[in-house]
């Protein structure tokens, strides 16, 4: 089986996903061109239908805002992928991160720059522990991490819902969320005078990207992790601490998702939440990691891509196109990446045909 360039597969998947989107919009009697309009508008703040209007920075900032958590969850899934593990538990780790950060925000007193840092550390540890559980079970009991992660997602949902109500001061107006965080814990916005909630959490995202890249590609620890992922038995035979690698990889993986939760709750919500359902960032992370081929630079771009898809689908409402088309496009993209063998197969067929003509 020939190896095909990961970038090529990602591009084909994205094109296929968008075509699926166009097709579904057309089949249901909407104008597919509006999807293009919404995409351009979300990406450049430029309205194709009203070309004389100036660029609106709000749209661009909202795009970056949507990108922040999914780059972090993308890093989370990718870190586990590189060690041969599938972290489908990002959703739960994210919720734990949210709740731990909210707890520290409300109960620890600290001056401004220190306070959000402490909250993020709390989110990191909480998410990390939630990732560590499937890690231990995998390393010492050889239990598949996927099932454990799925179960932990739901446990996290109910656990945080109970914890917030039981231990955080509840806002009497909502009854289901905590009171607002003190000013010192909030990550300030960076909105250039617009109403966007884009915030300085972006610094955390950039640091996380750099750390991911350095640890995975440039350190012996990262090398040992990758070796464990590529061939577990060979790595063990070479004297690498494979069990330690699995546990620590899942901890770090969970930590990234936990940070995603902390940054979101400190930068966007500013209060402790009880979740009505999954926010979906953990699952988005799977798409981001897959399309980004689990490397730092790839994740930056695929994060931007899926962030764009998310903001675009919000803007689609204006054109009477249901926003769920975004999910359909995303699903189609994951499907093609999963079934990438078809691309390899077709390519082999095509190159054979070319050979016959010679």
């Amino acid at each position, binding site marked *: 089986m020939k190896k095909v360039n990961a970038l090529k597969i990602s591009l084909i998947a994205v094109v296929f996903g968008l075509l699926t989107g166009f097709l*579904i919009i057309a089949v*249901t009697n909407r104008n597919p061109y509006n999807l293009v309009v919404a995409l351009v508008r979300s990406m450049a703040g430029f309205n194709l239908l009203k070309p004389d209007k100036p660029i609106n920075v709000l749209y661009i900032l909202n795009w970056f805002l949507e990108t922040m958590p999914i780059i972090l969850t993308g890093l989370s899934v990718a870190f586990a992928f590189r060690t041969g593990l*599938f972290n*489908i538990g990002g959703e739960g780790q994210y919720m734990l991160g949210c709740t731990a950060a909210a707890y520290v925000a409300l109960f620890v007193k600290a001056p401004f720059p220190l306070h959000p840092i402490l909250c993020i550390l709390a989110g990191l540890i909480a998410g990390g522990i939630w990732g560590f*559980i499937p890690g231990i*079970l995998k390393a010492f*009991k*050889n*239990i*598949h991490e*996927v*099932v*454990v992660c*799925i*179960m*932990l997602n*739901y*446990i996290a*949902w*109910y*656990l945080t*819902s*109970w914890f917030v*109500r*039981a231990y955080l001061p509840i806002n009497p107006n909502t009854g289901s969320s905590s009171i607002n965080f003190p000013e010192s814990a909030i990550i300030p916005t960076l909105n250039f005078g617009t109403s966007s909630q884009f915030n300085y959490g972006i610094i955390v995202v950039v640091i996380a990207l750099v750390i991911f890249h350095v640890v995975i590609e440039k350190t012996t620890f990262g090398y040992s992790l990758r070796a464990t992922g590529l061939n577990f038995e060979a790595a063990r035979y070479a004297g690498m601490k494979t069990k330690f690698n699995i546990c620590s990889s899942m901890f770090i993986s969970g930590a990234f998702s936990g940070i995603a939760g902390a940054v979101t709750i400190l930068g966007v919500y500013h209060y402790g939440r009880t979740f*009505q*359902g999954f926010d979906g960032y953990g*699952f988005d992370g*799977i*798409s981001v990691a*897959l399309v980004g081929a689990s490397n730092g630079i790839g994740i930056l771009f695929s994060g931007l891509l899926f962030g764009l898809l998310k903001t675009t689908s919000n803007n689609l409402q204006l054109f009477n196109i*249901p926003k*769920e*088309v*975004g*999910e*359909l496009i*995303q*699903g*189609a993209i*994951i*499907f093609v*990446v*999963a*079934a*990438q*063998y*078809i691309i390899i*197969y077709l390519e082999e067929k095509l190159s054979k045909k070319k050979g016959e003509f010679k």
Partner: protein
Amino acid sequence: MEVLNSLIEMTPISLMLATPLIIAGLGGLFSEKSGIVNIALEACMLIGAFVSATLLYFLYEAQVPFAAWISILAAVIVSTIFVSLHAIASIHLKADQTISGTALNVISTGLTVYACEIIFGAKSSKAFNISASLKEVRIPILKDLPLIGVLFDKIYPTTYIAILMVVVAWFILYKTPFGLRLRSCGEFPQASASMGINVVKMRWIGVLLSGAFAGFAGATLMLTTQTFFYFNSVHGLGFVAIATLIFGRWNPWGILGAGIFFGFAQTLGLYSSNVKMLSFIPQQFFSLFPYLITIVVIALFSGKGSAPKAAGEIYDASKR
């Protein structure tokens, strides 16, 4: 005596909640026994719930007889077609089964809510008339029996079907040559192929059955516990069905027991505030209980080998 009375009172609701879990769990069983892990049970249930709710709404308007059963049948068919995406990817295109299943889960929420927006112009379907939905049945004479009479009083017909399906699934899997072949494909497919068994065909059957069963489960859930479809109609029960499958140790009777157990656990959550002994436990703990016990059970029984050995692995005929 008080405990017994509340147990009897809880039984119909518990069985109602257990039924979709048992049916979808059996679907997952067929798929995993053939060697394909299907974490898209949630997606298939969602599709089944959507199709049954939508169709029942329109069939009632058109005054078609047996509307509920036609809706269930349609749900089964559409869900079976939908799950073939998973079959194509994981059997023919060597896809990672978890990723392919995740893709289906993402597609299903998008597709169903999108369809609601197109058909009903809202994020949910319009409520169907309850009189058109499934009705509880009371079996005369049997329902008056002491103690076990409760099993024949106000029980949905789908519950009896689910129990029948358990028996049939057990018979097919363990008492017929077909069942032996299907199971062999999930244990050591290369050996099955060498005995002339068509592994690809067996796995297609396994996956299609899982889609059909999960679609049925989704429709059952919709027609027995809800009146309209929205994005959270299945609220993770597809994953509880996987938990049922694991807690039931990949065995039809185990699935029946695990399903009823989880059904009771959920009902206990609903009743807990009324029962003195339980009222100090937060309601959320009853909700998370099935997930927690699944992890405990996997941890305790790991290495005991009741899971199909080759499930989740990409089939490569040349591997030994």
